[in-house]
């Protein structure tokens, strides 16, 4: 699957060391804004956002010495484009034992694009609990928003054309860390983060 995800004409825009630095900075910013790690909950959006959330939590532990609850939030059942494609397999949703009520929830995703995934995530969260605040951390913001949504923490802003495809690879799932852009030729404009 990881091999199929990497087209021939892809070029690297972030390598593994740059991703590590970006995540460390994001972790510092989250702690700075929250004035510590109390009441924080990180929810990653599967597949890759869930791995990134776990990494950010590890960095917060290194900074603050506190364990931040980490979970994952599948948004498949809340998508607005379900009827445009065959039924999709569900991905794991794991809400930390303490729940999200009155917590500061930081959603973590790999790529922010149209904003529709985040809209779906906000809906999904609505059915699980009522956080005190919700923030958004993404590794890559590629622009082209279709909804009034912005990220609070951005690993890197990468201006793109809609005909390009942004691919995030994480070692836990793809065997390596990298952010790639696949060029205009044949790239499918289906990225919907």
């Amino acid at each position: 699957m990881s091999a199929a995800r990497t087209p021939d004409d892809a070029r690297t825009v972030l390598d593994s060391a740059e991703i590590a630095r970006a995540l460390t900075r994001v972790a510092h910013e989250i702690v700075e804004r929250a004035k510590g790690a109390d009441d924080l909950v990180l929810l990653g959006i599967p597949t890759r956002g869930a791995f990134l959330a776990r990494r950010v939590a590890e960095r917060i532990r290194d900074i603050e010495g506190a364990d931040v609850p980490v979970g994952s939030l599948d948004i498949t059942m809340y998508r607005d484009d379900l009827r445009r494609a065959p039924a999709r397999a569900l991905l794991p949703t794991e809400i930390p034992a303490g729940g999200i009520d009155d917590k500061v929830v930081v959603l973590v995703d790999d790529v922010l694009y149209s904003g529709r995934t985040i809209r779906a995530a906000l809906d999904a969260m609505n059915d699980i609990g009522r956080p005190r605040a919700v923030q958004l951390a993404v590794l890559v913001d590629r622009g082209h928003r279709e909804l009034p949504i912005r990220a609070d923490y951005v690993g890197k802003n990468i201006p793109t054309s809609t005909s390009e495809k942004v691919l995030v690879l994480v070692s836990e799932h793809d065997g390596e860390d990298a952010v790639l852009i696949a060029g205009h030729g044949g790239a499918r404009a289906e990225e919907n983060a």
Partner: protein
Amino acid sequence: MNRHLLSAADLDRDDALLVLDTAAELASLTDRAVKKLPTLRGRTVVNLFFEDSTRTRISFEAAAKRLSADVINFSAKGSSVSKGESLKDTALTLEAMGADAVVIRHHASGAPHRLAHSGWIQGSVVNAGDGTHEHPTQSLLDAFTMRRHLAGGKGDLEGRRITIVGDVLHSRVARSNVLLLATLGAEVTLVAPPTLLPVGVETWPCATSYDLDSALKDADAVMMLRVQRERMNASFFPSAREYSRRYGLDARRMALLPDHAIVMHPGPMNRGMEIAAEVADADRSVIVEQVSNGVSVRMAVLYLLLGGAQLGSPLDPSSQLETAEA
């Protein structure tokens, strides 16, 4: 997945695992404050029941409602069917009302197939039990329950030994289970008196036996079937007492099972007939859990049939996963 679910044989191994994995994710909904998903908003599911049923109809109704579908319950009693309306005219009526899926239970084997393939309706058809033929969602919830207890809730049932006991002849549950469990790699043994095994059972992907005691000692799960008196128009065994002696699961027989083995029953039970009350209430009995798993499994089926675009063609699972992440 096909557009319809008519037989457990419609599901290949990948489809069956997709349903079970989806059901496993949906099962976590039970623990949530809001037990509802918006996924099938604006879709209409008709429960078309020509035969009495409590748990299956309620289970499908709960499943559809938890996915936000509109549910119309139609039972033959008190409807125009009792005035002589045909299946075709009933189907055309439902189509005119815009049914996206029809969940049908019928006393005639093959009625769901007729409904799905006659061009009367556009929507998906789900077989909720037809005559003595099939009951695919029951076999899915049974496989789901077995997987939770015997396979750690993941993957298939490769090499697990399942013993199905009782009135196989009249049992749509047994037929669907044999087909699905074989797809998932389990080894099924049917145990019944010779009169209650169907003609042609030797062509099914399972073993058969007339002796219950010998089929229990290395079973991972034993499923007791109800003796379906309402379908019996001849004497298949001399007396209820003799049947119960030879093919009923009592405490002595339960003690023959390995420690990890579970006891299942699709319901409704005849306590004292095919299953003793003390066995039905034992710790290793998962009969009540089967009911709650039924809702999750039926949600998974309705979601996979109705949740996406209706293309009516089998799908490549890898492309599904790829778009799910996008």
